[in-house]
């Protein structure tokens, strides 16, 4: 019995070693692809850059920067054209660029470059303007997007510890002034704890409950009134238009546009952020 257990332990240990070696190997491959992709982008070979950056993501090295670079490569690839044939973004590159900028921002909402580039990419689509939120909601989102969810979590935890320390300081000071200072700073820290926790939670739910999708089809895609290609076409969004996914039915998805219109689109034409 003990022997069996020993053998098992050895096997498990082996798996762990091989697994970690494998992981390390993957990481090195990803690094090579990353460098290759950047070099290709600098040379203007955007198709190769796209391939390499996609490969990095396939290898599991998922970060805001890789999505940002991939989106940039897609955008540049789509902007290329043979003179006389101005079919910009003929392969759905604009849709892919928008999608990957969204993904980068999902991982790092504070990435200002991605936000700027996304704005440019969206300018090239025929996306409708979103219904503007209230001023408070806009401010709240703007504040939330200055940091990642994890940064907000750290802030809230540090503020929590600080609050406890200040409370103790308040309780232990003898002098009235120090007691007063301790009391009010503890209160302020408490507010910071509450706000930062709320922002971290809000940021988390924005990611976890994200039902947004981007149209990635290469041409104007028909959106039908019902999940049936014979039904009436109610809209033709261009690639790069962001929608909210409501539900799916067969190979159709019901989507909600930013201006409030609903319709059915083939699931293969959209990709979840």
């Amino acid at each position, binding site marked *: 019995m003990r022997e069996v257990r020993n053998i098992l332990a050895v096997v498990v240990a082996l798996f762990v070693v091989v697994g970690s070696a494998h992981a390390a190997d993957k990481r090195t491959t990803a690094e090579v692809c990353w460098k290759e992709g950047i070099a290709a982008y600098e040379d203007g070979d955007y198709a190769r850059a796209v391939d390499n950056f996609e490969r990095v993501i396939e290898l599991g090295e998922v970060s805001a920067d890789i999505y940002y670079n991939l989106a940039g490569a897609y955008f540049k690839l789509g902007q290329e054209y043979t003179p006389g044939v101005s079919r910009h973004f003929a392969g759905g590159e604009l849709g892919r660029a928008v999608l990957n900028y969204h993904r980068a921002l999902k991982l790092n909402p504070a990435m200002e470059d991605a936000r700027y580039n996304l704005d440019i990419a969206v300018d090239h689509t025929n996306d409708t303007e979103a219904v503007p939120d209230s001023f408070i909601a806009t401010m709240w989102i703007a504040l939330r997007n200055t940091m990642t969810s994890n940064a907000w979590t750290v802030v809230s*935890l540090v503020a929590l510890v600080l609050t406890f320390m200040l409370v103790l300081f308040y309780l232990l000071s003898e002098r*009235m002034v120090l007691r007063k200072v301790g009391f009010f700073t503890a209160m302020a820290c408490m507010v910071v704890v509450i706000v930062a926790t709320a922002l971290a939670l809000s940021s*988390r739910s924005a990611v976890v409950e994200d039902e947004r999708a981007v149209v990635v089809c290469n041409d104007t895609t028909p959106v039908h009134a019902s999940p049936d290609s014979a039904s009436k076409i109610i809209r033709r969004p261009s690639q790069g238009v962001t929608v909210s996914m409501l539900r799916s039915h067969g190979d159709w998805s019901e989507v909600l546009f930013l201006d409030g219109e609903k319709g059915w689109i083939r699931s293969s034409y959209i990709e979840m952020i």
Partner: protein
Amino acid sequence: MDGEVLSLTSYNKTLAEAFNKCRKISCFVKMKTTLRLILVLVALASSWVAWGQASFTVDAPALTALGQPFRVEFSVDAEPERDSFKAPAFTGFEVLAGPSVSTGHSIQFINGKQSSSYNCTYTYVLLPSESGTFTIASASIKVDGKSYTTKPLAIEVIDEGEAESSAATERNPRQQTPESRIAKDDIVLKLLVSETDVYKGESIRAWLMLYTRVNIDSIESLDMPSFDGFWSQELSFDNTPSREQLGGRIYEAYKIKELLLSPQQSGKIVIPATIMSVLAQVVVEDKRHFDPIFGGRQVYHVSRELRTSPITINVKDFPQGAPASFNGAVGSFTMSSRMPQAELESNTADQIEVTIAGNGNLKFITAPTLILPESFEKYDTKVVDNVKLTASGTSGSITYTYPFVARSAGEFRIEPMLFSYFDPTTGEYHTLTTEPYTVKVTDDGTAAAVPMVGGYAGYGGAMRQLDRDIRFIHTGKLPSSAASMMILTPIYWLVVVVAVALFVVVYVALRKRIRDNRNIVARRMKRADKVAVQRLRMAQRSMEEGNRHAFYEEMLRAMWGYISDKFNIPVSNLTKETIREVLYRRGVSADVAEQFCEIISRSEEAQYAPSAEGDMSEVYAFAAEVISKIENVVKR
């Protein structure tokens, strides 16, 4: 409904015209001698009219059947010299009659202009004696000393003996109905196409032919198929009837309709049957109802429904390897471009014109795309076409005008435009290119005022910023994978719990000190009057000793110390103003506060100034009274 009726009458009209033309020559007015004199006089009067070249022609059917006599006419449009006509030898034919000569002369005045024509015709009636192709050699004639000859004319003689005999057996005069007088193959309708194997977009010609051996009175109805899968257009055509041989028999052939078809989809496309019904005329020699004046001829009208057989057209798709600029243009084309103005001021309009000319599906080609520099504003392309329909497809030219406005100054290069087409004759793609242009835009002085304009006209037209591009990618080392969300994870909760636990532990550990600390404050406040009383007592002792300086010092210390302890304010922070303020805030009346401050000022003054003995006890009593007053108010 109206349209149908209209088109039907037009068919009938064309048919009637065709018949008339047939008879034209024979209908030519034969002049009477009475008229001739007048005409000759007029002709003499108008002899200044230059005759120029006379023409001498021969006319005979190109196709005839064995045993069927036919006419050969030699006509000259000028007065020939007497007896100068020399007929050729009619080898292969028997001359039944001729030559019979007929002459005609006509004068016309149209809008005051006079024109005259002369015609002299020599007619022979020939009977083919054997089948085969024979040539009627040249005839010659002399006009004004000049000799003219006709061109040799080939005549095909066919032997339709069997067909004729079978038809003849049917024609049993006894039990003949008018219907049975027309054999099934006496009237044939055919839809012919120029080609059955074509590329998508290539044009083919289709024409509807009516072959008949009997007289056709009229067309009752014509039901053309819808030509699904084709883009069809009607062509105008020459409706002169001809004689054609069909299955060894001779027919009069009439063209009913001619269309240009351009397939719009690949695959096998079937053109369904065309159905036409005609009214044929049958003349029956009736001996029983012989009319002494009009003869025994009875004319019957027989209705016949004719039907073409369906035709399958094999439409090939374009071969692989189409260039990117190919948009479905089929045929052969040339492209030229023009830019009238290569130098302009900013904010002024200019244009580029591109002309595509050639033969093919011009109606379906799309304008080549013009790519302008970003600071140029592009407007809608204007299209002017000059396209004609011909039997071989549409031909002509289309001119595209691309207007634009240059917004900013500088020298810009306009990339060449590409246009690709597929040539079905060679089965290859060809790409045409325009020249690249260089545009020099000079500043009109307002450039700075309009840095942003509604560019990107093709992308929705909203106001957008020009010359914006995405920022450069992030270089450097490959960042590690993004961390997962920390909040609400066990680690997060662990940190929270540890922080709370540490706080609790520290609180519990320092519980006693915290309690004491809180008590120190409370005690100090309670103690305040006691301390004051003690201090006052010390002052009393000094008073009894007669030490004025010490007394007032103790008094001041007692007064300041009392406020400091009572209200937990450091002595160093105390002034008379703060005392007044603190006392006022704690509900002590201003009078009492004023008295308190007065004691302090009196003590300060008296500390170094000599004063009456009784003063010390008075101050002492007053201070005690004020303190007890404050105590009464503050304690409550």
